[in-house]
């Protein structure tokens, strides 16, 4: 069965600095990979996804992620963060597109 590990529970960063949120997964088969964002009192919103093809995936709000099969990683990056990026970020893996397994989340706090 697939699983996800988000290596940092909290990431504080100053506004306009770059950020990387780390995600590692385990699976015995090919997978789909996702990053979701959750703002306070709101539902999960899909930031980006990797299904196949190019390993560099671009998403909404200037985020991107790179799928690294040899390292089983799918780290999320943004070159310059804004206060409005403060939220909880979840990495998820799916072997069939339906049965998603989520990581525990990383709380990104952007400070002025």
């Amino acid at each position, binding site marked *: 069965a697939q699983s*996800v590990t*988000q290596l940092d529970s909290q990431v504080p960063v100053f506004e306009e600095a770059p950020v990387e949120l780390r995600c590692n997964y385990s699976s015995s088969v090919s997978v*789909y990979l996702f990053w*979701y964002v959750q703002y306070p*009192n*709101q*539902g*999960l*919103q*899909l930031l980006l*996804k990797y*299904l196949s093809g190019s390993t560099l995936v671009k998403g909404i709000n200037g985020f991107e992620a790179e799928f690294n099969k040899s390292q089983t990683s799918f780290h999320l990056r943004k070159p310059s963060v804004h206060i409005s990026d403060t939220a909880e970020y*979840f990495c*998820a893996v799916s072997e069939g*597109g*339906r*049965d*998603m*397994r*989520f*990581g*525990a*989340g990383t709380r990104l706090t952007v400070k002025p």
Partner: protein
Amino acid sequence: GAGVSQTPSNKVTEKGKYVELRCDPISGHTALYWYRQSLGQGPEFLIYFQGTGAADDSGLPNDRFFAVRPEGSVSTLKIQRTERGDSAVYLCASSSEWEGSYNEQFFGPGTRLTVL
């Protein structure tokens, strides 16, 4: 356009009581999912419906949890004899569905259940 809606947004109940949580999926979406998100954790899969039938209920933690979707649209998650450990945010998601293709799951805002 309406997204996935869930009612109530908050539910406080006492240990041992019965609760029902409702999910209204996006119109036309045939697939519906329930997840449970405990404090400090990511969402945990509970059950997946394709139409009216539960295609995968392997995530339901025990027989106190049950979900229905009688007309293939609205779904109700039912929890009997609630326990304090059931306190969590219950998320619903829906997606369109066809063979051989990935379909994005759209999430509702969740119902926060507190069992006292």
